[in-house]
């Protein structure tokens, strides 16, 4: 009789442990999705800046043509992003287009000292820098959550529970040195 109670006790503990592990994996997967959605939200903030950028460069014919092409490419890359599906390749593409646009802006603006000195342009650049920092930070948070999730499905006995019940696959972290450079905050010590 005692043996039966011990067996029941062990079975109950086992079931509770499995439920806890199952739920923890789900929580971590949700945290990754949320962090990804956050990255995409930050990326899409660029759509707010683009019209201001177009306004600023519209009086500079030569400048406008080159920049507008890059702006269109960036818009298209931003449209391809899906906050519901983790796709680091598309994010990489959007970040590359942002990089190209900023590079083009920095090179071309040298020919227009009055534009470079204008308050609107400087404010715009500050805003772009701030946004790039937020994207960099959001990517860092995403990568941290991905690491938590991957650890959560790979360590034992979580790997067993995942293989039998959750069936989640390992997620790749996003690595883009340019995007990471955008986030400038460094602790002092």
């Amino acid at each position, binding site marked *: 009789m005692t043996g039966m109670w011990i067996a029941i006790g062990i079975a109950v503990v086992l079931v509770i442990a499995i439920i806890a592990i199952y739920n923890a994996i789900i929580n*971590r997967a949700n*945290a990754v999705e*949320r*962090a990804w*959605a*956050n990255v995409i939200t*930050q990326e899409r903030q660029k759509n*707010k*800046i683009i019209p*201001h950028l177009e306004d600023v460069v519209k009086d500079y014919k030569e400048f406008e043509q080159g920049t507008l092409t890059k702006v269109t490419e960036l818009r298209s890359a931003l449209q391809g992003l899906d906050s519901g599906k983790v796709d680091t390749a598309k994010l990489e593409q959007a970040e590359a287009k942002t990089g190209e646009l900023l590079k083009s802006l920095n090179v071309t603006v040298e020919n227009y000292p009055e534009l470079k000195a204008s308050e609107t342009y400087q*404010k715009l650049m*500050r*805003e772009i820098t*701030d946004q790039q*920092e*937020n*994207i*960099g*930070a*959001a990517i*860092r*948070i*995403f990568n*941290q*959550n991905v690491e*938590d999730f991957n650890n959560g499905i790979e360590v034992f006995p979580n790997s067993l529970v995942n293989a039998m019940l959750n069936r989640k696959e390992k997620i790749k972290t996003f690595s883009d040195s340019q995007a990471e450079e955008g*986030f400038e*905050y460094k*602790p*002092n*010590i």
Partner: protein
Amino acid sequence: MLYYKNNKALISLLKNIKRQVSLSRSRQELDAVISELKSFSGSYQLNTKAYWITFTVVLLATGLLSYWDWSQRQHFQQSTWIIIAAGGALTLLSCITAYYPHHLMAKVSHALLQRDGLLDNNLTPVTFNGKATARQFQQRFSEFHRGNYSREIQELFKGSYQGDEYSFEYYYYHFHYVDERIVTETYTDSNGRVRTRTRREYDHYDRYGLILPFGLLRNFAVIGFSLPGAGKATYKPASNRFNKVFKVVAASEIEAAKAMKPTVVVAFEELSNVLSKVNFEVNDAADLCLSFADKDLIATPNKVKISEFEAFIEALEGEQEFEKLKAALSHVHYVMTKLDSNF
């Protein structure tokens, strides 16, 4: 009387320096103290070899004499106790005589470096009443609603910070509070009956922090350590790492989401690697209280002593940096710049 020649002069100088350092408030006053130290004509090295030899000899003599006296009758007699008492007193005296100059040297060296470090970091001591100031702070911030027995501010310094975009004045404080609790215990009395009795126990705690005008938020808190009376957290940023350490309390979820931009979230994650048990509380007057458990924010990092004179003067003449204080202030400045960007 116990010291002579150079040791005597050096001890007298150290005592004088100690008194003057405690009175110095400005760079000029501290420089005058350092000049006096530099003008000492003797050696900065203490020679306590003779005192240590005396200590060893007295200790050995006491041991040997006591043993000899005991061995006469194979038990402790009155004379043995007299030898032990007299020898013990002499041993203690010689030990204190040998140790005291080194202790004084370490204390004065630390006091000088500490005062210099405070001045290097633009920190000046503020005259205050510990209990009254704690009461004032308690009216402004939930952080000070701690300690059911007593609350007191034990240190208060005023400083200023010059950042790229903002500059502000701040107060650094050391808050000490005591919790009283009643402990019930059972014991057996002389009649063998089990009885209970109660006694009061006092637990002492310390918190440290910075208070400054923040201006960019109101009624907002990022809580890494219990904050008495703080509301319930309704907003959670996306970061697992942040959520493990902190919770966010704001007037509304939208306000919390607006403030907790990814850069701000990561900055708090970084801050939690530098400081422990952090609370970031902005009150309804938009003043910030950044509190933590770390006591070494304004502690001099130098351990060099006056006896290593050249290195000591070099440390005084260089700029001492309070790294943790700098990290806390740059965090506040960084959060200010991130919250102030409105396009």
